[in-house]
């Protein structure tokens, strides 16, 4: 059956590189689907990953146009390096210069589960390497030099991160709330330190009041942070539930810092 090839900007799945353990009809059907899809799209090969299947299977066409079925392939040894212009079905109508090994040795299993090996060079070697990369969740963008990657990314409409969108971001808007709270508490610390050099009781009284307002503000922001952080976390599907631990931890740290500051203020500022 001809399958739809996953193409940019649809993100690749995060599930990949699953070795085939059972050689059954499900596997044979997958191999046939890969062949049909290769023929329909006139391709030189496909990894199962490219049609949305996480099994470690690739099907290629050799120089004579015959199919090679590779199950659980592993690139074992290599010699020499060669740079060629490569194209891949994931990034339609795009080419990029990629450096690969010139000669490779691959071990794999055939559809009967028998161990096989293949020595390849030239175009076939390059295709095998690109397809094995797919089985481990990578596109050829991972094999580009830094400069080539920058050039390539400029040609992509949505940038390269889209291929990995199913993840939990590491920076959040909520971090700005933490920044504001930290700056406020930093100023409060300065206030407490300044109090050590102030003898005017009226001024100290004013300072204590300011510190109380500051503490109330930080507590308010901390409450806002607690709820907003959870809302923001739920928006990103790739974020795990362990985020709540981080959120509670952040809230608790802020409260702890504030308690220490206010205790010091009570002894040194409060009259």
């Amino acid at each position, binding site marked *: 059956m001809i399958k739809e090839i996953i193409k940019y900007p649809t993100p690749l799945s995060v599930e990949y590189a699953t070795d085939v353990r059972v050689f059954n009809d499900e596997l044979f059907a997958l191999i046939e689907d890969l062949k049909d899809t290769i023929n329909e799209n006139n391709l030189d090969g496909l990894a199962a990953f490219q049609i949305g299947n996480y099994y470690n299977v690739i099907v290629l066409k050799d120089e004579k146009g015959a199919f090679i079925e590779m199950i659980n392939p592993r690139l074992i040894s290599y010699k020499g390096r060669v740079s060629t212009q490569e194209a891949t079905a994931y990034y339609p109508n795009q080419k990029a210069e990629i450096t690969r090994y010139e000669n490779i040795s691959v071990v794999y299993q055939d559809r009967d589960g028998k*161990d096989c090996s293949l020595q390849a060079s030239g175009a076939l070697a390059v295709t095998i390497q690109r397809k094995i990369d797919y089985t481990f969740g*990578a596109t050829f963008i991972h094999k580009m030099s830094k400069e080539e990657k920058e050039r390539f990314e400029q040609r992509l409409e949505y940038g390269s991160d889209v291929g990995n969108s199913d993840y939990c971001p590491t920076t959040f808007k909520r971090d700005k709330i933490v920044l504001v709270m930290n700056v406020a508490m930093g100023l409060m610390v300065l206030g407490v330190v300044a109090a050590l050099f102030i003898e005017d009781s009226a001024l100290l009284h004013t300072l204590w009041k300011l510190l109380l307002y500051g503490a109330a503000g930080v507590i308010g922001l901390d409450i806002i942070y607690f709820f907003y952080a959870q809302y923001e976390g739920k928006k990103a599907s790739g974020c795990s539930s362990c985020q709540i631990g981080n959120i509670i931890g952040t809230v608790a740290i802020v409260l702890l810092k504030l308690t220490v500051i206010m205790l010091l203020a009570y002894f040194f500022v409060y009259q």
Partner: protein
Amino acid sequence: MARLVVLGGGVSGHTTATFAAKWLGSQHEVVVVTPNSKWNWIPSNIWVGVGEMTKEEVTFDLAPVYAKAGITYHQAKALSINPEGKEDSDKPFVTIEYTSEDKAGQTETIEYDYLVNATGPKLNFDATPGLGDGNGQMGENTVSVCTADHAVHAAEEFQKAIEKMKAGERQKFLIGTGHGMCTCQGAAFEYIFNIEHELNKAGVRDMAEVKWISNESFLGDFGMGGLHMKVGGYVVSSKLFAESLFAERGVEWLIGAHTSKVEAGKVEYELLDGTKGEEAFDFAMLIPPFAGVGLKAYNKAGEDITGTVFAPNGFMKVDANYNAGAYENWKASDWPRTYQNPTYKNMFAAGIAFAPPHIISKPMSSPNGTPINPTPPRTGMPSGIIGKAVAHSVCDLMTKGEDAKLHEASMAEMGAACVASAGKGVFSGQAAAMTVYPVVPDFEKYPGTGRDTDYTFGEIGLAGHWIKHILHHLFIYKAKLNPGWTLIPE
């Protein structure tokens, strides 16, 4: 008063003995038999192996710690177990041979009510010709970081290599596994990055060729069949992660390799595709394969029952499914839960000493029939967790009776964390911190990769160094039984 005898004082044995002593109090006796006089925080041996730490910083004397804990300590190695006792007594016992200077070579028997075998591995150097000296010890061709003394030796050889490079002589460094059935790729992985880091620091990186050799079928397998990692928010395979680390540092690699022979300055290897080759080196750190320590077992009549108690590789049989068969039949439930010996219910095995039901990575062999695949890693974290669970079980059996429910700690239900540093500095270098859950993939619970991607992630950065420093001090503090030690997790 009943007696618990713990064989081995490594991460697992020490955890079992110290927790058991704490929970049992003076009601029962806890005895530790270990050939070593010192406890070693093995992960930091990597830093000893490049001269960044001393042996003293990663070890401490066991005797005062056991004295404080009320544990009877014999510096001796266990030779055999008689789980049925002898002709005139039903009391099971172990035979030990002292290794301490004052009693070296003397043998003695110790009776037990419960036995925990936490003897760890025998470093089986002789499995590869030339890797060992023929007498079970490390040979003269390579170095190792498996023990603190080995690591000190490695650091000396490394320093010599640096001096040679400073004098204008190029050096080739070969780091990895010394056999097709090795585990502990992670330690070698960390060591190669520390070597590379130190070469840069010494200003001789351009004079060195650094190469990796391992029995993994892909880079980043780590004996766990690889893992998916969230790195800086992106999900990548440990293969890509490892390959990019190697490529960035100009380190070449040779994988799917069984090191078949080691000579001075040269290794011979066989690859998974059946080809054979040679690799020259000036400095090689090759991890040896592990085997059981060679304990024997005898029945009441004095007949050898080693094959009943131990698996052929010398590790003790526990409540695992050793008849799982082919790769397609492997299940998470094959892995042991209580670590109790199926024949003798008062014996347990913890840490590396228990026999795993099968490997974790995909089993592979060359066309010549040589098995080339990593064996299962059992790092400090699972070893400690298993040791504590076994201590719990044994204490309950001793205090509540033989029907007490055993505590469980399956490697298919526990995670592991690992920090692989490249350097030791507080402000320089990088470290890869990885967590994996579960250690043994559960294909039924997590279809596909067998792991929970939410809890399997990696991060690379300077902070990994700090974590490794913190772990170093934290675990040595805990092992010394300093105040609050029970609060520190395994």
